[in-house]
């Protein structure tokens, strides 16, 4: 019996308008194989999996399951073909119970057989050692708990090929290990897994890896045959230039930002727990941590968007209390939010207009009651030139900019605004190497101008390249603040996973 591949993709191409998100991709996934899909942000991994799950229709290409060509017009077709998927972002109904989320849309007829569904869910949980309470509302679960719901949801469909799109991004290291135990058992049952992950440690546990770069398949390799560096090279297309560690900096002047005992609760969870730190003039203070550990809440408090329940902070000696973003900005604070299209830009406005967002009432941009169009346009041209933004002109609509260029618009605005303090939350997320280098240079320039900078990043390379001190966030707590020169990737990585004791020892 010639073993057919479980999944075979031939020449799959998917375009979004002019953008080719998947370009002639071909790969096989064998029965019982753990196959990793690797690639930078925006390389097209999620797009490929959405095509395999029938959510998107490829423009070209053929998909075969167990040797049979399949035409996946909707997830129903995919489910029929035995394909299941855990999405990169949760697809849950918060108001439903765990059981309802898992069972909705399954079964047939009018009757919703709660008891049978529950028995089946419990059986799956038991078989794979997953802990879930079927009757709890999903909205009350932690993010990790919600991810388990997603996983059981897929297992419940009885799929023979599981696509897991960054399932561990929201799991604790412990939970991630548990997930891999589950995967082992699935493999033993002959089920194939297509796993997407950015975490090299996880990728290295797979059988084979397919690497995508800018929508094209660079190659598929047996994991055993390659090193991490090999994979990185395939992914990026070049060896990473050794991070140019910034030489000086750090505590040049007095404290610009001092945070004292900041605490905040959201939906009964303590998202910020007694956070205190100081950032000096001319210093870049790094914040490490898996996203979802309180960084976003910290930045929202610091930029005036949310009020902390307890504690306070001051900027250049001025106490900030019950403030609004406008008040904070007036103190010479710039803020680069993590979600640029949600928090940083107004998609339907042009570059020149977005460059004055928040300052549009200021006399500087007005002529009488009207906005100073010429001033705005000139400012736009300057920013496009100064930040090398790839756009048709200052009147280009921001919604149509790519991630990197959109980020540059925000940087241009916030750098111009920040005289004293710059708050940067994940400024390099989703950017390519060139753009990352650009952001690094700009941050250093800003630091050298005497600005205090708070920089949060999931990329430790960013932090090591730029920061003098690095604080690690875990579950709303600032576990430890480390001196860059006296710590290592490993130590911070362990702290990010919450292993405080390791460090303490």
């Amino acid at each position, binding site marked *: 019996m010639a073993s057919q591949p479980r999944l075979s993709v031939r020449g799959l191409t998917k375009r979004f308008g002019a953008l080719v998100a998947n370009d002639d991709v071909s790969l096989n996934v064998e029965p019982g194989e753990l196959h990793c899909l690797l690639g930078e942000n925006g390389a097209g991994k999620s797009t490929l999996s959405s095509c395999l799950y029938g959510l998107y229709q490829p423009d070209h290409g053929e998909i075969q399951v167990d040797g049979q060509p399949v035409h996946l017009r909707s997830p129903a077709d995919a489910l029929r073909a035995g394909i299941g998927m855990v999405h990169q972002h949760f697809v849950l109904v918060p108001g439903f119970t765990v059981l309802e989320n898992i069972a909705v849309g399954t079964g047939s007829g009018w009757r919703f057989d709660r008891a049978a569904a529950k028995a089946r869910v419990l059986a799956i949980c038991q078989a794979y050692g997953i802990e879930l309470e079927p009757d709890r509302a999903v909205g009350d679960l932690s993010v990790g708990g919600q991810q388990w719901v997603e996983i059981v949801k897929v297992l419940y469909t009885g799929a023979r090929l599981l696509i897991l799109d960054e399932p561990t991004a929201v799991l604790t290291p412990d939970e991630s290990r548990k997930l891999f135990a589950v995967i082992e058992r699935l493999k033993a049952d002959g089920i194939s897994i297509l796993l997407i992950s950015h975490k090299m440690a996880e990728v290295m546990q797979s059988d084979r890896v397919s690497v995508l770069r800018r929508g094209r398949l660079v190659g598929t390799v047996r994991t055993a045959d390659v090193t991490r560096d090999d994979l990185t090279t395939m992914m990026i297309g070049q060896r990473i230039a050794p991070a140019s560690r910034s030489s000086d900096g750090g505590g040049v002047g007095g404290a610009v930002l001092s945070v004292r005992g900041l605490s905040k609760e959201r939906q009964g969870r303590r998202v910020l727990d007694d956070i205190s730190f100081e950032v000096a003039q001319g210093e870049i203070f790094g914040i490490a941590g898996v996203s979802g550990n309180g960084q976003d809440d910290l930045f929202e408090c610091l930029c005036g968007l949310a009020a902390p329940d307890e504690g306070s902070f001051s900027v250049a000696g001025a106490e900030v209390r019950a403030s609004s973003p406008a008040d904070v900005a007036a103190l010479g604070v710039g803020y680069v939010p993590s979600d640029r299209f949600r*928090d940083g830009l107004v998609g*339907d406005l042009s570059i020149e207009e977005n460059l004055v967002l928040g300052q549009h009432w200021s006399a500087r941009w007005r002529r009488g009651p009207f*906005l100073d169009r010429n001033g705005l346009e000139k400012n736009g041209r300057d920013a496009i030139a100064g930040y090398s933004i790839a756009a048709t002109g200052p009147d280009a609509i921001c919604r149509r900019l790519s991630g990197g260029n959109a980020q540059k618009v925000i940087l241009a605005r916030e750098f111009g605004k920040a005289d004293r303090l710059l708050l940067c939350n994940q400024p390099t997320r989703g950017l390519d190497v060139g753009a990352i280098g650009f952001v690094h240079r700009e941050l250093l320039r800003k630091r050298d101008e005497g600005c205090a900078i708070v920089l949060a990043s999931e990329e430790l390379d960013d932090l090591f390249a730029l920061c003098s001190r690095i604080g690690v966030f875990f579950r709303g707590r600032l576990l430890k603040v480390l001196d860059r020169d006296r710590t290592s990737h490993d130590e911070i990585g362990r702290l990010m996973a919450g292993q405080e004791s390791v460090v303490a020892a």
Partner: protein
Amino acid sequence: MTDFSIAEWRIERRREARPAARFIGLGAALAGAIIVCGMLFLAAGAEPLKAFASLAKGSFGSLRATGETLVKATPLIFTGLAACVAFRARIWNIGAEGQVFAGAMFAYWAQHNLGEFPALVQIPVVVMGGIAGGGLYAALAGLLKTRFSVDEVISTVMLNYIIVYVLSLLLLRGPWSEAGGFFEQTARVDRDATLPMLIAGTRLHMGFLLALAAAVLVHLILTRTPLGYEIRAAGSNLRALDVQGTNTRRLIIVVMLLSGALAGLAGVTEVYGVHYRLKAGAVAGYGYSGIIVAILGQLHPVGVVAAAILFGALLNGATLMQIETGVPSALIYAIQAILLLFFLAGWAMCNFRLRRTGRV
């Protein structure tokens, strides 16, 4: 066979329709609407061509007819602009209807209590009264949204009902009722408070100029001022505005004030430009039509004026059409609806395209 065609051809949404596609789509919509309306005319026993001709004659066939069309368009321009301002900011003010009432009522209250003054005093008073009445009533919904998070769609609809009863309370045996009259209406207003006529032989009054001025003003505000900037930004991404330091609650109230003030002026032009009395029938219906006008006008002031004139023409021409062809004037509402539905569908259909796909 069907499977083949599905596999080879697919309808998909475009990101942005090309102007040519828009043009074709709208042309097709118009053609479709005309065909359906023509069929209705036939069913009503009228010759479609003759009906359309008398519709046109009734709306633009003479100076008087044109003037009347513009009279009908005037309140629709105001309510259309009201919807335009709010919808641009993605605030769903469905309450222009009630704000028209409020504007008319506030204007009447101010003018009624003012006593006898020359037109130079009274007219500004009624105009300001309309602005204040409509604006404040809308701001109430804004306040409910920002302070109590009551959805504006809901609150404005409720407020539409409430004000109708308040007016009825004031008119029917209430303090404003016409002495000795049994109808729900006030006595005729002071001649000096009425809006001056513009062209002899027509009923075209100053309100139309006010409406045009309002359209220009709204256009300037939207495109040139920081407030317009905020409105457009709010329509695209309210959160980003918030994050970047704009007081979005205040913005919502300001937008409602502006939107309501525009709607309120529609009440003023109807009471002081057309009916010379305050009564429910003088001001009812314009708020809801304004929403349609605003959407037809693509939420653009110029488009709003054009759509309002189109609607005014339909309303006005319908009378002559009915007289000349005997088609019931109720048909005109059906025609408006069909036009609107075809337009909406045509517009939406521009966002789709047929694409060939293939498998390797």
